[in-house]
């Protein structure tokens, strides 16, 4: 009898912790909403036309680490070359010196060998070959032996001739004005803003998987983007973001430890520890976003990719200035919300059901578990949908709003449990 009581009490306690977590999630969403409204109210001016032609705007080096010569990669680079900006160059680091790949690049961009120096302040393995385009494109292609991700990025920074480095998620879709919109906060306070991160939720997607992806994007935008941007040195890029970072900040930090996410977290940790009000700014405009998902497969891939990136960063936390607290409470909160909560919740369901079948767990406790997991999840998702609507001063599409609002029920009664499994698997996998 005592064991039965203990089990019921333990489940009750866990359920109440879930309730508290839900409360915290809703608080974060509200905070994100407040931050986004403040940003929206900060300016009604559109400076892009003037920034485009002003020689005072610092030039930007856009770095791409490419592993192949697929149509998608080439289109991505072509998009970067077409960005509207006064002066920008694209540096492609090809981590695969395969001759066939190189021929595709040479043919596509009319490359010719370059004598340009590729040495710099950061430690990186030597560049095998360098190419520039004979077309009127400001482009440098660096070919090197396959190495670590950090090595490729550091090679790009070494070759960059501009004081600001831009990085785009290769999976993302971005607007031509991305750089012009991102550079604003750096010009507003060039001494203290060392990085800018821009992202907005993707355009509406069709189908139920699209609705789930929309809800997920709204939660991420309000939480991990806006709410974290409102905290001191807590912002970190999410999938689909475009990033600007000062080159001198990258060099001072010793370069990349892995990818752009790890760099950003490390820089935030350094800023936090510096005792000075250095900060990274968030631009919540539709400058860059992931494309709309069309199937559950794509949705699953996206969830897993984000989780792997996040937990890859968490595993390297000891290398960052500030360690696990490089983003304040940000990294521990992400770890709790995206790994421990799904893990415990997934274990809790069978324990509660089996307990109820055998009479070890009371019906009230079972209902409490349902309310504090799926019930709270529905409310968190509903809040993110409603708050996202409130941020948009002009209101969005009413049919989309209704579709997303009511999709929060099936999202938390089926998809949520499946997503928990994806999150656990991705966090544990390498």
């Amino acid at each position, binding site marked *: 009898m005592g064991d039965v009581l203990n089990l019921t009490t333990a489940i009750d306690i866990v359920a109440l912790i879930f309730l508290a977590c839900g409360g915290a999630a809703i608080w974060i969403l509200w905070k994100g909403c407040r931050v986004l409204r403040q940003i929206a109210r900060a300016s*009604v001016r559109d400076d892009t036309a*003037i920034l485009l032609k002003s020689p005072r705007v610092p030039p930007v080096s856009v770095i791409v680490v490419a592993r192949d010569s697929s149509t998608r990669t080439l289109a991505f680079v072509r998009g970067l070359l077409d960005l509207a900006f006064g002066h920008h160059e694209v540096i492609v680091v090809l981590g695969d010196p395969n001759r066939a790949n190189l021929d595709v690049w040479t043919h596509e961009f009319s490359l010719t060998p370059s004598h340009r120096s590729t040495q710099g302040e950061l430690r990186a393995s030597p560049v095998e070959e360098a190419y520039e385009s004979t077309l009127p494109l400001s482009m440098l292609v660096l070919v090197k032996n396959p190495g670590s991700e950090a090595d490729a990025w550091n090679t790009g920074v070494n070759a960059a001739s501009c004081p600001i480095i831009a990085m785009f998620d290769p999976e993302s879709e971005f607007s031509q004005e991305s750089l012009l919109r991102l550079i604003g906060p750096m010009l*507003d306070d060039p001494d203290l803003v060392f990085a800018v991160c821009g992202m907005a939720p993707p355009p509406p997607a069709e189908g139920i998987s699209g609705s789930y992806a929309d809800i997920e994007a709204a939660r991420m935008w309000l939480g991990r983007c806006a709410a974290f941007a409102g905290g001191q040195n807590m912002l970190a890029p999410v999938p689909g973001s475009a990033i600007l970072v000062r080159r001198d900040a990258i060099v001072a930090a010793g370069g990349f430890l892995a990818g752009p996410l790890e760099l950003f977290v490390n820089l935030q940790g350094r800023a936090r520890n510096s005792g000075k009000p250095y900060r990274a700014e968030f631009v919540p405009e539709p400058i860059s976003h992931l494309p709309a998902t069309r199937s559950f497969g794509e949705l699953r891939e996206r969830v897993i990719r984000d989780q792997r990136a996040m937990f890859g960063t968490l595993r390297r936390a000891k290398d960052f200035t500030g360690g696990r607290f490089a983003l304040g409470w940000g990294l521990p909160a992400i770890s709790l919300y995206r790994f421990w909560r799904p893990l415990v919740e997934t274990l809790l369901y069978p324990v509660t059901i089996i307990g109820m079948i055998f009479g070890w767990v*009371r019906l009230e406790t079972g209902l409490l578990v349902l309310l504090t997991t799926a019930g709270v999840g529905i409310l968190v998702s509903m809040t993110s949908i409603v708050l996202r609507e409130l941020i948009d001063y002009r*209101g969005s599409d009413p049919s989309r709003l209704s579709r997303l609002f009511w999709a929060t029920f099936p999202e938390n009664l089926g998809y949520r449990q499946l997503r928990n499994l994806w999150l656990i698997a991705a966090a544990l996998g390498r």
Partner: protein
Amino acid sequence: MITHLELTGVAALLGGYFVWNLGMYLVALLRAMKWRERARLSAQLQPRIRQELVSFLAGSENHEAIREFIRKSRLDVADALLSFQATVAGSARDRLCALTIEHELIHDWCTETRSKDPIIRRTAFARLAFACSYEPCRRVAGELLRQALNDPDTEVRFYAWRALVQSGTIEEIEKLFEASLSQSLLIRILLTEELRRFAISLCERAAIWALQSPESKRVLAALEILVAWERAVPIPDLGQLLSHGDRRIRIQALRLARLVPLERHDLRGIGRMVVSDDPEASVEAARTLGAVRFEGALPELAHAMRSGNALLARTAAEAMAEIPGKGWATLEELSAGGDLMAASAAAEALHRVRRKAEV
């Protein structure tokens, strides 16, 4: 162990929050529907209003059509008027501005400048800044824009400055130039573009005073604006700034040196800066020497190419490539030399300049 009462409490808490969310959803839904209706009306009206305004600018006197649009949507007419901001000037712009008086749009905007909503307020000032290039509109707006010059909201101040650029006297423009020196880089960039057409007038007094200021920050800001104008400007005594104690000022002065007529001894001074201990100043000095094609500094440029600094070597090589004859000959010698970095930079510069020559 949880009791029935406690479970009811949790359910009530969540239920209450659900009802609140539902209420917010309904409000958001109604708002979205209203906006969609509004957007649909705008999409219908905007092309027609613009067409009517184009006819009006071409000389049509059909005021009734515009009056009809005003009755349907004052907001859309205001937006359409503002959309001509960058494309019309002179008497055509005056005709547009006169419309704002005739249809009392300007009165709406004056009222909106007192709104508590910063977005409405800023939009009103942006519109007034456009309309007040026309003197009768300025009379209607009265002191509003002048008072806005000291507004705590930076954006409102910016629109007041923009209005001032449209209609101010040269003394007022000089004051605006003075004020711009203490603004953020972004605002300075925006004002630089607005002030560009007064470059020569400002270089007669205001810019000179700013360059003589004891405050390094102001000198630096003034230099940055002058450089950004990218216009040949008469700046006496630039040599003093080239040897200023603040390296940031020296670097900006080097950039400005490409746009200012210089004495030979100033150019020699810039040549010496190429081999200074400051790599950034050396790079800028090399660029300037390339831009003015000064042959007298070829030894310093050649020395810089062997400095071990890749960027400086590249820049010095590019500067020499700008000097046909002696510069190219020096590059050829260096490309065959033993210093790998200098040889590579020289070869790259020669390759580029020959390709350019072929084209």
